[in-house]
Protein backbone atom coordinates (compact mmCIF):
# COMPACT_ATOMS: atom_id res chain seq x y z
CA UNK A 1 0.00 0.00 0.00
CA UNK A 2 1.51 3.31 -1.00
CA UNK A 3 1.40 6.13 1.52
CA UNK A 4 -0.28 9.40 0.63
CA UNK A 5 2.18 12.17 -0.19
CA UNK A 6 1.48 15.89 -0.25
CA UNK A 7 4.12 18.15 -1.70
CA UNK A 8 5.01 21.73 -1.08
CA UNK A 9 8.05 23.97 -1.14
CA UNK A 10 10.90 22.73 1.07
CA UNK A 11 12.28 25.85 2.73
CA UNK A 12 14.30 24.51 5.61
CA UNK A 13 16.18 21.22 5.34
CA UNK A 14 15.92 18.15 7.53
CA UNK A 15 13.87 14.97 7.81
CA UNK A 16 11.66 14.16 10.78
CA UNK A 17 8.83 11.80 11.62
CA UNK A 18 6.20 12.66 14.19
CA UNK A 19 2.57 13.39 15.04
CA UNK A 20 0.77 16.33 13.51
CA UNK A 21 -0.69 19.06 15.73
CA UNK A 22 -3.07 21.37 13.93
CA UNK A 23 -3.12 24.99 14.92
CA UNK A 24 -6.44 26.67 14.26
CA UNK A 25 -5.47 30.27 14.08
CA UNK A 26 -8.77 31.95 13.45
CA UNK A 27 -11.30 29.94 15.41
CA UNK A 28 -14.87 31.00 14.70
CA UNK A 29 -17.73 30.75 17.11
CA UNK A 30 -21.09 29.78 15.63
CA UNK A 31 -22.95 32.81 14.19
CA UNK A 32 -25.85 32.39 16.59
CA UNK A 33 -26.34 30.82 20.00
CA UNK A 34 -29.99 29.77 19.92
CA UNK A 35 -29.63 27.49 22.94
CA UNK A 36 -27.99 29.98 25.26
CA UNK A 37 -29.69 32.61 27.39
CA UNK A 38 -27.82 35.88 27.92
CA UNK A 39 -26.85 35.10 31.52
CA UNK A 40 -25.32 31.74 30.56
CA UNK A 41 -23.63 33.29 27.54
CA UNK A 42 -22.15 35.99 29.75
CA UNK A 43 -21.03 33.48 32.36
CA UNK A 44 -19.18 31.46 29.71
CA UNK A 45 -17.63 34.50 28.08
CA UNK A 46 -16.55 35.97 31.37
CA UNK A 47 -14.97 32.63 32.33
CA UNK A 48 -13.17 32.52 28.98
CA UNK A 49 -11.80 36.04 29.42
CA UNK A 50 -10.56 35.06 32.86
CA UNK A 51 -8.98 31.82 31.66
CA UNK A 52 -7.05 33.51 28.85
CA UNK A 53 -5.98 36.29 31.22
CA UNK A 54 -4.71 33.70 33.71
CA UNK A 55 -2.79 31.90 30.97
CA UNK A 56 -1.12 35.12 29.85
CA UNK A 57 -0.38 36.13 33.43
CA UNK A 58 1.39 32.80 33.95
CA UNK A 59 3.45 33.41 30.80
CA UNK A 60 4.29 36.91 32.01
CA UNK A 61 5.88 35.51 35.15
CA UNK A 62 8.53 33.61 33.19
CA UNK A 63 8.92 36.01 30.27
CA UNK A 64 11.72 38.54 29.78
CA UNK A 65 11.10 42.09 31.00
CA UNK A 66 9.87 43.55 27.72
CA UNK A 67 7.56 40.63 26.89
CA UNK A 68 6.22 40.67 30.44
CA UNK A 69 5.19 44.33 30.03
CA UNK A 70 3.17 43.54 26.92
CA UNK A 71 1.64 40.41 28.43
CA UNK A 72 0.63 42.38 31.52
CA UNK A 73 -1.07 44.95 29.33
CA UNK A 74 -2.95 42.10 27.63
CA UNK A 75 -4.03 40.73 30.99
CA UNK A 76 -5.33 44.19 31.90
CA UNK A 77 -7.23 44.46 28.62
CA UNK A 78 -8.92 41.10 29.17
CA UNK A 79 -9.74 42.14 32.75
CA UNK A 80 -10.96 45.56 31.64
CA UNK A 81 -14.33 46.02 33.40
CA UNK A 82 -15.58 48.26 30.58
CA UNK A 83 -14.96 45.43 28.08
CA UNK A 84 -16.95 43.04 30.26
CA UNK A 85 -19.78 45.55 30.66
CA UNK A 86 -20.00 46.14 26.91
CA UNK A 87 -20.07 42.39 26.20
CA UNK A 88 -22.81 41.89 28.77
CA UNK A 89 -24.76 44.75 27.25
CA UNK A 90 -24.63 43.27 23.75
CA UNK A 91 -25.55 39.81 25.03
CA UNK A 92 -28.57 41.25 26.85
CA UNK A 93 -29.61 42.94 23.62
CA UNK A 94 -29.82 39.47 22.08
CA UNK A 95 -26.44 39.23 20.32
CA UNK A 96 -24.69 35.86 19.97
CA UNK A 97 -21.36 35.41 21.79
CA UNK A 98 -19.55 35.89 18.48
CA UNK A 99 -21.45 39.04 17.63
CA UNK A 100 -21.09 40.46 21.15
CA UNK A 101 -17.33 39.85 21.12
CA UNK A 102 -17.04 41.44 17.66
CA UNK A 103 -19.01 44.48 18.75
CA UNK A 104 -17.31 45.01 22.11
CA UNK A 105 -13.79 44.43 20.84
CA UNK A 106 -14.71 46.55 17.83
CA UNK A 107 -15.50 49.49 20.09
CA UNK A 108 -12.11 49.14 21.71
CA UNK A 109 -10.35 48.89 18.36
CA UNK A 110 -12.01 52.15 17.33
CA UNK A 111 -10.85 53.79 20.55
CA UNK A 112 -7.28 52.68 19.87
CA UNK A 113 -7.40 53.70 16.22
CA UNK A 114 -8.03 57.24 17.36
CA UNK A 115 -4.87 57.11 19.45
CA UNK A 116 -2.25 57.10 16.71
CA UNK A 117 0.15 54.60 15.26
CA UNK A 118 1.76 53.13 18.39
CA UNK A 119 -1.73 51.95 19.22
CA UNK A 120 -2.15 50.36 15.81
CA UNK A 121 -0.02 47.53 17.15
CA UNK A 122 -2.38 47.12 20.08
CA UNK A 123 -5.27 46.75 17.64
CA UNK A 124 -3.54 43.64 16.26
CA UNK A 125 -3.13 42.52 19.88
CA UNK A 126 -6.87 42.95 20.46
CA UNK A 127 -7.64 40.79 17.45
CA UNK A 128 -5.30 38.12 18.72
CA UNK A 129 -6.90 38.32 22.18
CA UNK A 130 -10.37 38.03 20.66
CA UNK A 131 -9.33 34.84 18.83
CA UNK A 132 -7.92 33.41 22.02
CA UNK A 133 -11.17 34.04 23.84
CA UNK A 134 -13.12 32.39 21.00
CA UNK A 135 -10.75 29.41 21.09
CA UNK A 136 -11.25 29.11 24.84
CA UNK A 137 -15.01 29.09 24.34
CA UNK A 138 -14.67 26.45 21.59
CA UNK A 139 -12.19 24.34 23.53
CA UNK A 140 -9.54 24.31 20.75
CA UNK A 141 -5.86 25.26 20.58
CA UNK A 142 -5.46 28.73 19.22
CA UNK A 143 -1.93 29.32 20.25
CA UNK A 144 1.46 27.71 20.49
CA UNK A 145 1.11 26.98 24.19
CA UNK A 146 -1.77 24.58 23.69
CA UNK A 147 0.36 22.29 21.51
CA UNK A 148 1.54 18.86 22.65
CA UNK A 149 5.23 18.15 23.00
CA UNK A 150 7.35 16.95 20.06
CA UNK A 151 4.83 17.59 17.33
CA UNK A 152 4.84 18.64 13.73
CA UNK A 153 3.09 21.97 13.65
CA UNK A 154 0.52 22.22 10.89
CA UNK A 155 -1.25 25.48 10.08
CA UNK A 156 -2.69 27.48 7.22
CA UNK A 157 0.15 29.97 7.68
CA UNK A 158 2.22 31.28 10.56
CA UNK A 159 2.78 34.91 11.33
CA UNK A 160 4.87 36.67 13.97
CA UNK A 161 2.03 36.62 16.52
CA UNK A 162 1.52 32.89 16.27
CA UNK A 163 5.22 32.14 16.45
CA UNK A 164 5.74 34.24 19.58
CA UNK A 165 5.71 31.90 22.54
CA UNK A 166 6.63 28.78 20.55
CA UNK A 167 8.96 26.53 22.47
CA UNK A 168 11.46 25.29 19.84
CA UNK A 169 12.18 22.21 21.93
CA UNK A 170 8.57 21.11 21.52
CA UNK A 171 8.40 21.44 17.73
CA UNK A 172 9.83 18.91 15.28
CA UNK A 173 8.93 20.66 12.02
CA UNK A 174 6.58 23.16 10.38
CA UNK A 175 4.13 22.48 7.58
CA UNK A 176 1.86 25.22 6.20
CA UNK A 177 -0.80 25.17 3.54
CA UNK A 178 0.15 28.63 2.27
CA UNK A 179 3.26 30.79 2.30
CA UNK A 180 6.39 31.05 0.17
CA UNK A 181 10.15 30.96 0.22
CA UNK A 182 10.50 34.11 2.27
CA UNK A 183 7.40 33.84 4.42
CA UNK A 184 7.68 34.08 8.16
CA UNK A 185 7.50 30.30 8.59
CA UNK A 186 10.56 29.84 6.40
CA UNK A 187 12.54 32.48 8.26
CA UNK A 188 11.67 31.15 11.71
CA UNK A 189 12.26 27.52 10.75
CA UNK A 190 15.66 28.31 9.31
CA UNK A 191 16.72 30.32 12.31
CA UNK A 192 15.64 27.47 14.62
CA UNK A 193 17.23 24.83 12.41
CA UNK A 194 13.95 22.93 12.00
CA UNK A 195 12.60 21.37 8.80
CA UNK A 196 9.77 23.25 7.09
CA UNK A 197 7.53 22.79 4.08
CA UNK A 198 5.30 25.66 2.94
CA UNK A 199 2.75 26.12 0.14
CA UNK A 200 1.75 22.52 0.79
CA UNK A 201 -1.70 22.19 -0.74
CA UNK A 202 -3.77 19.60 1.00
CA UNK A 203 -1.78 19.76 4.23
CA UNK A 204 -4.65 21.18 6.26
CA UNK A 205 -6.70 18.07 5.49
CA UNK A 206 -4.32 16.03 7.66
CA UNK A 207 -5.86 15.34 11.05
CA UNK A 208 -4.17 16.09 14.36
CA UNK A 209 -2.39 13.04 15.69
CA UNK A 210 -1.59 11.54 12.28
CA UNK A 211 2.02 10.45 11.89
CA UNK A 212 3.81 12.13 9.01
CA UNK A 213 7.31 12.31 7.60
CA UNK A 214 8.46 15.79 6.66
CA UNK A 215 11.36 16.34 4.27
CA UNK A 216 12.27 20.00 4.39
CA UNK A 217 14.57 19.73 1.39
CA UNK A 218 12.38 18.00 -1.16
CA UNK A 219 9.15 19.49 0.22
CA UNK A 220 7.41 16.14 0.65
CA UNK A 221 5.09 15.29 3.47
CA UNK A 222 4.35 11.55 3.64
CA UNK A 223 1.19 10.64 5.57
CA UNK A 224 1.43 7.42 7.62
CA UNK A 225 4.88 6.59 6.21
CA UNK A 226 5.95 2.95 6.00
CA UNK A 227 9.21 1.87 7.63
CA UNK A 228 10.65 1.70 4.12
CA UNK A 229 9.66 5.33 3.45
CA UNK A 230 11.32 6.38 6.69
CA UNK A 231 14.53 4.40 6.14
CA UNK A 232 14.88 5.67 2.61
CA UNK A 233 14.36 9.35 3.51
CA UNK A 234 16.64 9.22 6.56
CA UNK A 235 19.42 7.50 4.63
CA UNK A 236 19.28 10.08 1.84
CA UNK A 237 19.38 12.89 4.36
CA UNK A 238 22.33 11.38 6.23
CA UNK A 239 24.31 10.90 3.02
CA UNK A 240 23.63 14.48 2.15
CA UNK A 241 24.73 15.80 5.51
CA UNK A 242 27.91 13.74 5.35
CA UNK A 243 28.67 15.25 1.96
CA UNK A 244 28.14 18.74 3.30
CA UNK A 245 30.19 18.18 6.45
CA UNK A 246 33.14 17.14 4.32
CA UNK A 247 33.50 20.71 3.15
CA UNK A 248 34.51 23.00 6.02
CA UNK A 249 36.34 26.23 6.66
CA UNK A 250 36.39 29.58 4.86
CA UNK A 251 34.29 29.85 1.74
CA UNK A 252 35.99 29.53 -1.63
CA UNK A 253 35.34 28.47 -5.17
CA UNK A 254 36.86 25.30 -6.55
CA UNK A 255 39.82 27.27 -7.92
CA UNK A 256 40.42 29.10 -4.67
CA UNK A 257 38.65 32.45 -5.03
CA UNK A 258 37.68 33.52 -1.49
CA UNK A 259 34.08 34.20 -0.63
CA UNK A 260 33.56 35.14 2.99
CA UNK A 261 30.70 33.13 4.52
CA UNK A 262 28.95 34.87 7.38
CA UNK A 263 25.80 34.52 9.49
CA UNK A 264 22.78 36.73 10.09
CA UNK A 265 21.90 37.10 13.78
CA UNK A 266 19.76 39.13 16.16
CA UNK A 267 19.39 38.83 19.93
CA UNK A 268 19.48 35.04 19.67
CA UNK A 269 22.97 34.46 18.43
CA UNK A 270 23.89 31.07 19.89
CA UNK A 271 23.31 29.10 16.70
CA UNK A 272 25.22 31.74 14.76
CA UNK A 273 28.17 31.66 17.13
CA UNK A 274 28.38 27.86 17.03
CA UNK A 275 28.24 27.66 13.24
CA UNK A 276 31.30 27.27 11.06
CA UNK A 277 31.45 30.81 9.69
CA UNK A 278 33.85 33.69 9.39
CA UNK A 279 31.65 35.97 11.47
CA UNK A 280 28.45 37.97 11.33
CA UNK A 281 27.39 39.74 8.14
CA UNK A 282 24.24 41.17 9.65
CA UNK A 283 23.64 41.77 13.34
CA UNK A 284 20.06 43.07 13.56
CA UNK A 285 19.67 45.33 16.58
CA UNK A 286 15.92 46.04 16.57
CA UNK A 287 15.04 43.40 19.15
CA UNK A 288 16.61 45.57 21.85
CA UNK A 289 14.14 48.34 21.05
CA UNK A 290 10.88 46.54 20.35
CA UNK A 291 8.15 46.36 22.99
CA UNK A 292 9.75 49.16 24.98
CA UNK A 293 8.34 52.47 26.05
CA UNK A 294 11.71 54.21 26.01
CA UNK A 295 14.86 53.52 24.05
CA UNK A 296 17.52 51.44 25.79
CA UNK A 297 20.29 53.61 27.23
CA UNK A 298 23.96 53.50 26.25
CA UNK A 299 25.14 51.22 29.02
CA UNK A 300 22.32 48.72 28.56
CA UNK A 301 23.09 48.56 24.85
CA UNK A 302 26.81 48.35 25.46
CA UNK A 303 26.54 45.33 27.71
CA UNK A 304 24.28 43.61 25.21
CA UNK A 305 26.68 44.26 22.33
CA UNK A 306 29.64 43.11 24.44
CA UNK A 307 27.86 39.85 25.10
CA UNK A 308 27.31 39.27 21.39
CA UNK A 309 30.82 40.36 20.36
CA UNK A 310 32.33 38.05 22.95
CA UNK A 311 30.65 35.11 21.24
CA UNK A 312 32.49 35.98 18.01
CA UNK A 313 35.97 36.56 19.39
CA UNK A 314 38.51 37.17 16.67
CA UNK A 315 35.81 37.15 13.99
CA UNK A 316 34.04 39.92 12.11
CA UNK A 317 30.71 41.34 13.31
CA UNK A 318 28.82 43.77 11.09
CA UNK A 319 26.27 45.66 13.18
CA UNK A 320 23.27 47.23 11.51
CA UNK A 321 22.00 50.34 13.28
CA UNK A 322 18.37 50.54 14.30
CA UNK A 323 16.02 49.71 11.44
CA UNK A 324 12.67 50.91 12.73
CA UNK A 325 10.27 53.79 12.26
CA UNK A 326 7.31 53.85 9.92
CA UNK A 327 7.36 50.13 9.15
CA UNK A 328 8.22 49.04 12.68
CA UNK A 329 6.70 51.68 14.91
CA UNK A 330 8.26 52.36 18.28
CA UNK A 331 6.53 54.41 20.95
CA UNK A 332 9.51 56.67 21.52
CA UNK A 333 9.82 57.61 17.86
CA UNK A 334 7.08 60.16 17.39
CA UNK A 335 5.88 59.26 13.96
CA UNK A 336 3.01 60.71 12.01
CA UNK A 337 0.57 58.26 10.55
CA UNK A 338 1.97 57.18 7.20
CA UNK A 339 0.03 55.55 4.41
CA UNK A 340 3.11 53.86 2.93
CA UNK A 341 5.27 52.81 5.85
CA UNK A 342 7.68 50.88 3.64
CA UNK A 343 8.39 54.13 1.83
CA UNK A 344 8.42 56.24 4.93
CA UNK A 345 10.58 57.61 7.68
CA UNK A 346 12.42 54.45 8.63
CA UNK A 347 15.95 53.22 9.13
CA UNK A 348 18.56 55.96 8.89
CA UNK A 349 15.84 58.54 8.13
CA UNK A 350 14.74 58.40 11.77
CA UNK A 351 18.13 59.85 12.74
CA UNK A 352 17.21 63.22 11.27
CA UNK A 353 14.33 63.38 13.72
CA UNK A 354 15.96 61.68 16.69
CA UNK A 355 19.73 62.08 16.34
CA UNK A 356 20.30 61.00 19.91
CA UNK A 357 18.96 57.51 19.15
CA UNK A 358 21.68 56.98 16.57
CA UNK A 359 24.34 58.69 18.70
CA UNK A 360 23.54 56.50 21.69
CA UNK A 361 23.66 53.37 19.59
CA UNK A 362 26.95 54.25 17.90
CA UNK A 363 28.51 55.19 21.23
CA UNK A 364 27.43 51.87 22.74
CA UNK A 365 28.68 49.85 19.77
CA UNK A 366 32.03 51.64 19.86
CA UNK A 367 32.44 51.20 23.61
CA UNK A 368 31.62 47.50 23.34
CA UNK A 369 33.97 47.07 20.40
CA UNK A 370 36.88 48.54 22.35
CA UNK A 371 36.45 45.86 25.01
CA UNK A 372 36.32 42.88 22.66
CA UNK A 373 38.49 41.11 20.18
CA UNK A 374 35.81 40.83 17.53
CA UNK A 375 36.37 42.98 14.45
CA UNK A 376 33.37 45.31 14.61
CA UNK A 377 32.00 47.00 11.51
CA UNK A 378 28.88 49.17 11.48
CA UNK A 379 26.34 49.92 8.75
CA UNK A 380 23.15 51.94 8.33
CA UNK A 381 19.89 50.72 6.76
CA UNK A 382 17.67 52.48 4.20
CA UNK A 383 20.37 54.86 3.00
CA UNK A 384 19.43 56.63 -0.24
CA UNK A 385 21.88 59.44 -0.95
CA UNK A 386 25.60 60.09 -0.89
CA UNK A 387 25.14 62.88 1.62
CA UNK A 388 23.39 60.46 4.00
CA UNK A 389 26.39 58.17 3.65
CA UNK A 390 28.78 61.01 4.35
CA UNK A 391 26.83 62.10 7.40
CA UNK A 392 26.50 58.58 8.83
CA UNK A 393 30.18 57.84 8.24
CA UNK A 394 31.18 61.06 9.98
CA UNK A 395 29.02 60.20 13.01
CA UNK A 396 30.27 56.64 13.26
CA UNK A 397 33.92 57.57 12.82
CA UNK A 398 33.43 60.35 15.35
CA UNK A 399 32.66 57.68 17.92
CA UNK A 400 35.78 55.75 17.01
CA UNK A 401 34.24 53.17 14.69
CA UNK A 402 36.72 52.73 11.88
CA UNK A 403 34.97 50.51 9.37
CA UNK A 404 31.71 52.09 8.32
CA UNK A 405 29.35 51.02 5.56
CA UNK A 406 25.80 51.23 4.32
CA UNK A 407 23.12 48.84 3.15
CA UNK A 408 22.07 48.90 -0.47
CA UNK A 409 18.30 48.51 -0.22
CA UNK A 410 17.24 51.58 -2.12
CA UNK A 411 17.86 51.40 -5.88
CA UNK A 412 19.18 54.97 -5.87
CA UNK A 413 22.05 53.91 -3.67
CA UNK A 414 22.97 50.94 -5.84
CA UNK A 415 22.98 53.16 -8.92
CA UNK A 416 25.46 55.55 -7.28
CA UNK A 417 27.54 52.87 -5.58
CA UNK A 418 30.79 54.33 -6.92
CA UNK A 419 30.24 57.72 -5.26
CA UNK A 420 28.95 55.97 -2.14
CA UNK A 421 32.19 54.02 -1.77
CA UNK A 422 34.15 57.27 -1.83
CA UNK A 423 32.47 58.11 1.49
CA UNK A 424 32.46 54.76 3.27
CA UNK A 425 34.28 51.46 3.53
CA UNK A 426 31.82 48.83 2.33
CA UNK A 427 28.33 48.12 1.04
CA UNK A 428 26.02 45.31 2.08
CA UNK A 429 23.13 44.44 -0.22
CA UNK A 430 19.78 43.76 1.44
CA UNK A 431 18.14 41.68 -1.25
CA UNK A 432 14.64 41.55 0.24
CA UNK A 433 14.12 45.30 0.45
CA UNK A 434 16.11 46.03 -2.70
CA UNK A 435 13.77 43.71 -4.62
CA UNK A 436 10.75 45.33 -3.00
CA UNK A 437 11.80 48.83 -4.02
CA UNK A 438 13.10 47.90 -7.45
CA UNK A 439 9.84 46.24 -8.40
CA UNK A 440 7.55 48.55 -6.40
CA UNK A 441 6.08 45.38 -4.89
CA UNK A 442 5.19 44.70 -1.28
CA UNK A 443 7.35 41.75 -0.27
CA UNK A 444 4.61 40.54 2.10
CA UNK A 445 1.96 40.07 -0.59
CA UNK A 446 1.66 36.49 -1.80
CA UNK A 447 0.20 37.77 -5.08
CA UNK A 448 3.45 39.56 -5.89
CA UNK A 449 5.92 36.85 -4.83
CA UNK A 450 7.30 36.46 -8.33
CA UNK A 451 8.24 40.13 -8.55
CA UNK A 452 10.37 39.98 -5.42
CA UNK A 453 12.06 36.72 -6.43
CA UNK A 454 15.82 37.30 -5.99
CA UNK A 455 16.46 35.63 -9.35
CA UNK A 456 14.87 38.59 -11.14
CA UNK A 457 17.38 39.73 -13.78
CA UNK A 458 16.72 43.42 -13.12
CA UNK A 459 17.63 42.91 -9.48
CA UNK A 460 20.76 41.00 -10.44
CA UNK A 461 21.68 43.90 -12.72
CA UNK A 462 21.53 46.38 -9.83
CA UNK A 463 23.65 44.00 -7.80
CA UNK A 464 26.16 43.74 -10.63
CA UNK A 465 26.45 47.54 -10.76
CA UNK A 466 27.07 47.65 -7.02
CA UNK A 467 29.64 44.84 -7.08
CA UNK A 468 31.45 46.47 -10.03
CA UNK A 469 31.74 49.69 -8.07
CA UNK A 470 33.21 47.68 -5.21
CA UNK A 471 35.84 46.16 -7.48
CA UNK A 472 36.82 49.56 -8.88
CA UNK A 473 37.09 51.06 -5.41
CA UNK A 474 38.79 47.92 -4.02
CA UNK A 475 36.19 47.87 -1.23
CA UNK A 476 34.03 44.91 -0.22
CA UNK A 477 30.45 44.42 -1.36
CA UNK A 478 28.48 41.69 0.41
CA UNK A 479 25.00 40.25 0.44
CA UNK A 480 23.06 39.92 3.66
CA UNK A 481 19.56 39.12 2.46
CA UNK A 482 18.34 35.53 2.79
CA UNK A 483 18.82 35.18 -0.99
CA UNK A 484 22.43 34.31 -0.19
CA UNK A 485 21.23 31.02 1.30
CA UNK A 486 20.17 29.65 -2.09
CA UNK A 487 23.25 27.54 -3.03
CA UNK A 488 22.92 28.13 -6.76
CA UNK A 489 22.06 31.80 -6.48
CA UNK A 490 25.08 32.15 -4.19
CA UNK A 491 27.25 31.03 -7.11
CA UNK A 492 25.54 33.62 -9.33
CA UNK A 493 26.31 36.31 -6.76
CA UNK A 494 29.95 35.29 -6.73
CA UNK A 495 29.87 35.54 -10.51
CA UNK A 496 28.53 39.09 -10.21
CA UNK A 497 31.57 39.99 -8.14
CA UNK A 498 30.29 39.92 -4.59
CA UNK A 499 32.88 39.32 -1.83
CA UNK A 500 30.80 37.93 1.04
CA UNK A 501 27.53 36.16 1.69
CA UNK A 502 25.65 36.30 4.98
CA UNK A 503 22.77 33.95 5.77
CA UNK A 504 21.05 32.00 8.53
CA UNK A 505 23.47 29.47 10.09
CA UNK A 506 21.59 26.47 8.80
CA UNK A 507 22.34 27.37 5.20
CA UNK A 508 26.12 27.65 5.49
CA UNK A 509 27.10 24.06 4.74
CA UNK A 510 25.13 23.84 1.56
CA UNK A 511 26.35 27.17 0.22
CA UNK A 512 29.93 26.32 1.14
CA UNK A 513 29.68 22.97 -0.66
CA UNK A 514 28.03 24.57 -3.66
CA UNK A 515 30.71 27.23 -4.09
CA UNK A 516 33.43 24.63 -3.66
CA UNK A 517 32.08 22.74 -6.63
CA UNK A 518 32.33 25.60 -9.16
CA UNK A 519 35.25 27.60 -10.48
CA UNK A 520 35.12 31.39 -10.53
CA UNK A 521 34.66 31.16 -14.29
CA UNK A 522 31.65 28.87 -13.79
CA UNK A 523 30.17 31.45 -11.44
CA UNK A 524 30.71 34.26 -13.94
CA UNK A 525 29.04 32.20 -16.61
CA UNK A 526 26.03 31.55 -14.36
CA UNK A 527 25.79 35.27 -13.68
CA UNK A 528 25.89 36.18 -17.38
CA UNK A 529 23.21 33.67 -18.22
CA UNK A 530 20.97 34.83 -15.37
CA UNK A 531 21.40 38.50 -16.30
CA UNK A 532 20.32 37.86 -19.84
CA UNK A 533 17.34 35.70 -18.98
CA UNK A 534 13.79 36.82 -19.68
CA UNK A 535 12.46 36.29 -16.17
CA UNK A 536 13.30 35.04 -12.71
CA UNK A 537 11.89 31.62 -13.53
CA UNK A 538 13.93 31.43 -16.75
CA UNK A 539 17.08 32.62 -14.98
CA UNK A 540 16.77 29.90 -12.37
CA UNK A 541 16.01 27.19 -14.92
CA UNK A 542 18.86 28.13 -17.24
CA UNK A 543 21.41 28.22 -14.45
CA UNK A 544 20.09 24.95 -13.02
CA UNK A 545 20.57 23.30 -16.41
CA UNK A 546 24.08 24.69 -16.71
CA UNK A 547 24.95 23.51 -13.24
CA UNK A 548 23.66 20.02 -14.02
CA UNK A 549 20.86 19.97 -11.53
CA UNK A 550 17.48 18.39 -12.18
CA UNK A 551 14.85 21.09 -12.77
CA UNK A 552 12.31 21.75 -10.08
CA UNK A 553 14.38 20.92 -7.05
CA UNK A 554 14.59 23.84 -4.67
CA UNK A 555 17.93 23.08 -3.10
CA UNK A 556 18.99 20.20 -5.26
CA UNK A 557 22.00 17.98 -4.76
CA UNK A 558 25.31 18.82 -3.16
CA UNK A 559 26.34 20.42 -6.40
CA UNK A 560 29.34 18.15 -6.71
CA UNK A 561 30.12 17.61 -10.37
CA UNK A 562 28.42 14.55 -11.85
Amino acid at each position, binding site marked *: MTSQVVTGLGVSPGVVVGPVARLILRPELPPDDVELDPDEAYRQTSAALGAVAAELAAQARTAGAEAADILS*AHVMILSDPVLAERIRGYLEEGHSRRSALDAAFGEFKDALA*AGGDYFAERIADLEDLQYRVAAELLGVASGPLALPDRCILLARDLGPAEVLGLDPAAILAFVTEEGGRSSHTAIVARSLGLPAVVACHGACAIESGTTVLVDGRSGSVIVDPSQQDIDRSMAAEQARNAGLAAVRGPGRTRDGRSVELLVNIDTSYAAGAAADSEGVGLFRTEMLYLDRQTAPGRSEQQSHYEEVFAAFQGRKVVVRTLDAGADKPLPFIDAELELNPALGVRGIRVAARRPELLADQLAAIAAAARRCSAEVWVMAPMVSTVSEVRSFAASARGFGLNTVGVMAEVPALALRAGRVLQECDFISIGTNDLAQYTFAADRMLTALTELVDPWQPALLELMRITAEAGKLAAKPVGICGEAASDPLLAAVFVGLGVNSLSMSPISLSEVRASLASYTEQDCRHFAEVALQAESAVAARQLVQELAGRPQGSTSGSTGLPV
Partner: protein
Amino acid sequence: MPQRRVTVGSSVGLHARPATILCTAASKQPVPVTIGREDGPAVDARSIVMVMSLRIKGGETVILQTEDAAGEAALDELARIVDSELDSVA
Protein backbone atom coordinates in the same frame (compact mmCIF):
# COMPACT_ATOMS: atom_id res chain seq x y z
CA MET B 1 -19.00 67.10 41.53
CA PRO B 2 -15.66 66.40 43.23
CA GLN B 3 -12.63 66.65 40.98
CA ARG B 4 -8.86 67.02 40.97
CA ARG B 5 -6.59 68.69 38.45
CA VAL B 6 -3.28 66.78 38.23
CA THR B 7 -0.12 67.05 36.16
CA VAL B 8 1.00 63.69 34.82
CA GLY B 9 4.29 62.77 36.45
CA SER B 10 5.16 59.73 34.34
CA SER B 11 7.71 60.78 31.76
CA VAL B 12 6.29 58.42 29.13
CA GLY B 13 2.72 59.48 29.76
CA LEU B 14 -0.24 57.21 30.42
CA HIS B 15 0.24 54.13 28.35
CA ALA B 16 1.10 50.46 29.00
CA ARG B 17 2.85 50.21 32.37
CA PRO B 18 1.69 53.53 33.89
CA ALA B 19 -1.86 52.99 32.63
CA THR B 20 -1.81 49.49 34.10
CA ILE B 21 -0.89 50.87 37.52
CA LEU B 22 -3.55 53.60 37.36
CA CYS B 23 -6.31 51.30 36.11
CA THR B 24 -5.55 48.63 38.69
CA ALA B 25 -5.84 51.25 41.44
CA ALA B 26 -9.02 52.70 39.94
CA SER B 27 -10.61 49.25 39.86
CA LYS B 28 -10.03 48.95 43.59
CA GLN B 29 -11.84 52.18 44.44
CA PRO B 30 -15.39 52.01 45.83
CA VAL B 31 -16.66 54.69 43.43
CA PRO B 32 -16.29 55.14 39.66
CA VAL B 33 -13.73 57.76 38.64
CA THR B 34 -13.25 59.32 35.21
CA ILE B 35 -10.11 60.83 33.71
CA GLY B 36 -9.62 63.16 30.79
CA ARG B 37 -8.07 66.35 29.52
CA GLU B 38 -9.68 69.63 30.52
CA ASP B 39 -11.18 70.23 27.12
CA GLY B 40 -11.67 66.61 26.15
CA PRO B 41 -13.81 63.55 26.83
CA ALA B 42 -13.69 61.88 30.22
CA VAL B 43 -13.25 58.11 30.22
CA ASP B 44 -13.66 55.44 32.88
CA ALA B 45 -10.34 55.26 34.74
CA ARG B 46 -10.77 51.49 35.23
CA SER B 47 -10.50 50.83 31.52
CA ILE B 48 -6.93 50.44 30.30
CA VAL B 49 -7.94 50.68 26.68
CA MET B 50 -9.91 53.87 27.19
CA VAL B 51 -7.10 55.45 29.23
CA MET B 52 -4.42 54.44 26.70
CA SER B 53 -6.45 55.75 23.79
CA LEU B 54 -6.35 59.25 25.27
CA ARG B 55 -2.61 59.15 24.59
CA ILE B 56 -1.83 61.44 27.51
CA LYS B 57 1.78 62.55 27.58
CA GLY B 58 4.02 63.29 30.53
CA GLY B 59 3.54 66.83 31.82
CA GLU B 60 -0.03 67.14 30.58
CA THR B 61 -2.81 68.24 32.92
CA VAL B 62 -5.75 65.88 33.46
CA ILE B 63 -8.99 66.08 35.43
CA LEU B 64 -10.00 63.21 37.72
CA GLN B 65 -13.66 63.33 38.52
CA THR B 66 -16.33 61.37 40.34
CA GLU B 67 -20.09 61.80 40.60
CA ASP B 68 -20.12 60.46 44.12
CA ALA B 69 -19.86 63.18 46.74
CA ALA B 70 -18.13 60.64 48.98
CA GLY B 71 -15.44 60.02 46.41
CA GLU B 72 -12.78 62.46 47.66
CA ALA B 73 -10.56 59.72 49.09
CA ALA B 74 -10.64 57.84 45.81
CA LEU B 75 -9.66 61.00 43.94
CA ASP B 76 -6.78 61.63 46.33
CA GLU B 77 -5.44 58.12 45.87
CA LEU B 78 -5.60 58.24 42.07
CA ALA B 79 -4.26 61.79 41.91
CA ARG B 80 -1.25 60.67 43.90
CA ILE B 81 -0.62 57.90 41.38
CA VAL B 82 -1.03 60.11 38.32
CA ASP B 83 1.30 62.67 39.82
CA SER B 84 4.18 60.24 40.41
CA GLU B 85 6.84 58.89 38.06
CA LEU B 86 5.34 55.51 37.19
CA ASP B 87 7.77 54.48 34.54
CA SER B 88 10.80 53.68 36.69
CA VAL B 89 11.61 50.07 35.87
CA ALA B 90 12.02 47.96 39.00
